């Protein structure tokens, strides 16, 4: 479903702020894989996701989504294949627009936008049902501006927008990191439910080792722009935080520095 082949990315090349973010990373996701991604700050997790999403051009390598080479496609064209949820709840929605208008924008992802009406009556009914599934009461506030929603509500809405039209690949960039623990676990629960129901191929970055272990069928750990651990199948199912820390020490030759990565 997704192939990342030997991708390199350096920011601010040739300047004092030069930062090599990805060093020849390669990763292949099978159809229906739910991969969790962990790693310290600056490990290249978000860079990898942004490379797939096409936020900027990569220096070297190839990105293939569902057999289509998208390496040269601009971000807005790749969007047709992708569903994305960002870390900052402000990023995923248009605050000055209505809840239903945001959903209508997402519904038309990957399609040409013309002079047809921006949201039809039939769509409204569909959105009402989908919002009701979230269990947040948003179905009664469809014409409210998204800016009036809480961070958790906005993240749930963004998740719904990302999956409203089944994406080839769902990219979750620490989408619960900015939420309080209770809301975060609720949004994660929702994520699990939707990913399993629609059998979505998913890449989820998280800072929380426990979340990375509990969710998904495969776990990768990144360090300094490379994938240093790739755990799947039975091994992933039986994984504990202690196992993970031990493996990390074996691979990297150092102790896992950040408590935050364990506790979240």
């Amino acid at each position, binding site marked *: 479903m997704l192939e990342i082949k030997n991708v390199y990315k350096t920011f601010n090349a040739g300047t004092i702020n030069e930062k090599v973010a990805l060093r020849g990373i390669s990763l292949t996701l099978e159809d229906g894989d739910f991969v969790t991604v962990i790693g310290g700050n600056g490990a290249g997790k978000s860079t990898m996701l942004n490379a797939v999403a096409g936020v900027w051009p990569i220096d070297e390598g190839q990105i293939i989504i569902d057999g289509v080479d998208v390496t040269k496609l601009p*971000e*807005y*064209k790749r969007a047709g294949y992708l569903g994305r949820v960002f870390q900052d709840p402000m*990023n995923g929605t*248009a605050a000055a627009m209505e809840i239903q208008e945001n959903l209508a924008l997402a519904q*038309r992802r990957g399609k040409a936008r013309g002079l047809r009406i921006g949201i039809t009556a039939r769509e409204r009914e569909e959105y009402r049902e989908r919002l009701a599934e979230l269990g947040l009461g948003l179905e009664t506030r469809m014409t409210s501006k998204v800016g009036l929603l809480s961070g958790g509500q906005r993240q749930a809405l963004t998740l719904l927008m990302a999956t409203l039209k089944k994406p080839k690949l769902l990219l979750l960039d620490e989408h619960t990191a900015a939420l309080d623990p209770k809301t975060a676990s609720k949004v994660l629960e929702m994520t699990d439910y939707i990913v399993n129901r629609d059998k979505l191929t998913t890449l989820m970055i998280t800072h929380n080792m426990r979340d990375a272990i509990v969710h998904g069928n495969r776990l990768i750990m990144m360090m300094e722009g490379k994938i240093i651990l790739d755990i799947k199948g039975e091994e992933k199912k039986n994984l504990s935080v202690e196992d993970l820390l031990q493996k990390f020490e074996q691979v990297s030759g150092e102790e896992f520095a950040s408590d935050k990565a364990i506790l979240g």
Partner: protein
Amino acid sequence: MNIASLINAFPGAVAQGLIWGIMAIGVWITFRVLDIADMTVDGTMCTGGAVCIMMMLSGHNVWVSMLAAICAGMIAGLVTGFFHTVLGIPAILAGILTQLGLWSINLKIMGKANQAINVDKYDLLVSLRFIKGVAVYKNTIFVVAVAIVILIALLYWFFGTELGCSIRATGCNPNMSRAQGINTDRNKVLGLMISNGFVGLAGSLIGQYQGFADINMGRGAIVIGLAAVIIGEAIFGRIFQNFALKTLSIVFGAIIYYIVFQFVIWLGVDTDLLKMFSAIVVAIFLGIPTLKSRYFAKPVKRGGRADA
């Protein structure tokens, strides 16, 4: 100072305010919908007037001339959009560059700095002579008011379409828009073109109204447009939430601006100072949100309303 002269000047102020209201709607589209301060409009205003007057002087029909003025404005917007999106020049600078280029173009269109048109010899749509003592359907205030109703209806429809919604999203959150498959660069160009089309139209109307096109007619237009936006939002912002009413409030803002303008002239204030006053008023109002949040911030309550 006699009251009669003030009252006499009132209809003219309303007519001018209405025409500038069309211009202010253009400014509002870039400033509020797209979140871009577009400096092109100072040049486009004159381009619209120059194209319209010159076309009419060479024998074209008033409607054809005004259509040409709108197209000329849209081309100016296209150029600014090109500078901004393809060449990556910051929006403000892109607008300034186009504006400067338009100065020469406007001179070339007119052949000199000023071109007059005689209202008796040409069939103008609006004129300061059509304010009093003419049939209602010919009255400039009526004509421009009807035009504004039609324009607002068109905008209301357009910004409700798939394309219009995607332009609004582009101005609101470009990152999210791209993630939802919206070509934000193309949308910015489109928005700039629509906006400058409005300004070109306003320029063609102002040219006819005053009976001449002049190289300086657009100077400070962006500030007047912003003043209209700010006045309109400050007075009607709380009661006008609907998109069509919001646009209408901008027109009201422009009318109020011109009424105050007439009043200040009537008071005998040195007219040389008026542009400075406009600039100061706009600076103060644009600064209020920042000053409020910096010095008069209220503690944020949990569950309170975020800024929409």
